[in-house]
């Protein structure tokens, strides 16, 4: 089944991102993880979120991260490798979080929640995609968070450009 292929791909490349010491390998395995999560979004009937994931994460954030790697390390010396610290404690904490979350998820019996059983799952209504619904929601119920998000993006753009400017040369 397609979901398990995507899930295995996401987990394997995420684990490789953590295990490898080379920064560029970590960046490209994060790319594979983000792509498989976009595929899982498509399988969950969230086509607009999947395209947004592709455009924002794969096309934007990952390119930013790769530029960050190239600009913040000299490729010829060892700084393209990142050292690991706190390996034992980190593995312990992450493993405990994983065990606790999995225990709670398996114990909670989520599928028998009443509001999950009431809903019809794989019917999107008359339209085949969620784009129209999301557009209507963004302009009616969620218009205030939408405007605040635009303001936040403007502030982040100006702030990032101001911070990254080299003041000595200008």
């Amino acid at each position, binding site marked *: 089944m397609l979901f398990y292929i995507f899930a295995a791909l*996401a987990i394997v490349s995420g684990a490789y991102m953590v295990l490898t010491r080379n920064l560029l390998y970590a960046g490209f395995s994060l790319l594979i993880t983000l792509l498989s999560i976009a595929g899982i979004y498509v399988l969950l*009937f969230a086509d607009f979120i999947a395209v947004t994931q592709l455009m924002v994460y794969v096309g934007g954030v990952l390119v930013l991260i790769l530029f*960050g790697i190239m600009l913040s390390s000299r490729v010829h010396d060892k700084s393209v490798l990142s050292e690991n610290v706190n390996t034992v404690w*980190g593995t312990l904490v992450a493993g405990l979080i994983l065990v606790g979350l999995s225990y709670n998820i398996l114990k909670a019996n989520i599928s028998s929640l009443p509001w999950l059983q009431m*809903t019809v799952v794989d019917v999107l209504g008359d339209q085949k995609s969620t784009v129209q619904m*999301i557009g209507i929601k963004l302009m009616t119920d969620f218009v205030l968070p939408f405007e605040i998000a635009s303001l936040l993006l403007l502030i982040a753009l100006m702030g990032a450009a101001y911070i990254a400017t080299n003041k000595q040369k200008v």
Partner: protein
Amino acid sequence: MEQIPLEHILLLSAVLFSLGILAVITKRHAVVVLMGIELIFNAANLNLVAFSRHDPTLMQGQLFSLFVIVVAAAEAAVALAIVLRVYQHFRTANLNEIATIEN
């Protein structure tokens, strides 16, 4: 089409979340720590979208995850700008070597 069980999606999200935590704790290069944070964001988004499948008329989960993606993009831009400035100042991006506030 066969239904994907909700527990499996939540378990995948839990695995990705703990991998992100592991990256944040064990890595000492600032950019890799940012990658771990992005992985944590994606794990949270996966949960939101998974539950939004059961909410086809309101779709609050998908809209919430849309705003999470927006905030994550803004965070990544500002954080990478800060990393670049720190690298220009200290000539390193190792978080253990820049643990000082004075210049």
